């Protein structure tokens, strides 16, 4: 018995893990703060199609988002089942696109205005009609840099 006791006395004290929770909490807070849950509250269905020739959008440059798709189930009663355009938090008509871009430009410093990219987030089951109208409006307001935002994947599985 005495043999074991001796060993215990001479051994190293266990490493204190009391600060482990602090470290983990710090990580946790970092992730909680860094997480962007969702920028816009979508009122439309927005399943992006897949593509593989994609480029990353530069977050340093200004980006405006235009969403197109059918209204989601909760809004079908109000907005019907045709494809709609969402700018910021509201469903808007095609005519509003120009004033939306103007408002987005007004928020920017002047030297950044030409670098504004419009990210088109279009539901994969949407029809081309509305998107074509939006593109015409973007051309009229001279917002020519666009990006068809997609997920990465095999196009044949779209």
């Amino acid at each position, binding site marked *: 018995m005495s043999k074991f006791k001796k060993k215990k006395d001479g051994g190293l004290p266990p490493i204190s893990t*009391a600060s482990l929770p602090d470290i983990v909490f710090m990580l*946790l807070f970092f992730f909680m703060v860094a997480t962007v849950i969702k920028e816009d509250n979508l009122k439309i269905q927005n399943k992006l199609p897949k593509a593989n020739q994609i480029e990353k959008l*530069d977050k340093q440059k200004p980006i405006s988002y235009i969403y197109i798709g059918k209204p989601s189930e909760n809004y079908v009663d109000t907005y019907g089942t045709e494809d709609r355009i969402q700018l910021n938090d509201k469903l808007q008509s095609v005519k509003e696109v120009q004033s939306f871009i103007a408002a987005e430009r007004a928020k920017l410093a002047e030297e950044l205005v030409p670098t504004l990219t419009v990210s088109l987030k279009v539901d994969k089951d949407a029809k081309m009609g509305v*998107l074509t109208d939006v593109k015409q409006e973007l051309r009229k307001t001279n917002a020519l840099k666009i*990006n068809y935002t*997609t997920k990465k994947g095999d*196009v044949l599985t779209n």
Partner: protein
Amino acid sequence: MAKRSAPEVNAGSMADIAFLLLIFFLVTTDIAVDSGLSRKLPPWEPDINTPPVIIKEKNIFALTLNSNNEILLTSGGDSELLAIKDLQERTTAFLDNGGGKDEDACKRCKGAKSPESSDNLQKAVISLANDRLTDYKTYITVQNEILAAYNVIRNREFIKDYPNLKMNFVEATAMYQDKGADKKVRESLKEKLEAIKLVVPQKFSEAEAQRN
């Protein structure tokens, strides 16, 4: 009985709880990196009567998407229905054909040199028209395949022109856009990328969607 001090609360499981939360946030977070197909729209020119540019029919690769998401290819006087899986190959073959002679000859093309198809990389034009009822996913697929065809040729030419860089056009573009990379490297890449873009230009026109 002697007065006992309150027992210490065991904080050992705190770490477990915090880990659980941490893992939950790790899993649910997707640090949103937006990526997609970048395109540039043509500027709006209202009511300017510019004379139409005359392009030889064999230099046009005209794709039409109908409301049933079928692809009609009109090239060199023939029309045919095309399956999506064949699109990229056919586009590459068209761009790379190099059927031109004399001053139109294409030094870089490795294609079939058919007189019925495009003269050279500078002259080959791809035109895309879609119906208002075409599905967006079909449109994106076609856009993707056309870009892929251009990238195949650009990759090949980039590797041929700059073999010591050990990367292709797409990788070089990604490196150029990466803000973390060395500034000098990015500058030199920019020149090379521009040179390849001049050699293999994207001549890709989109007609307005047809009303029906």
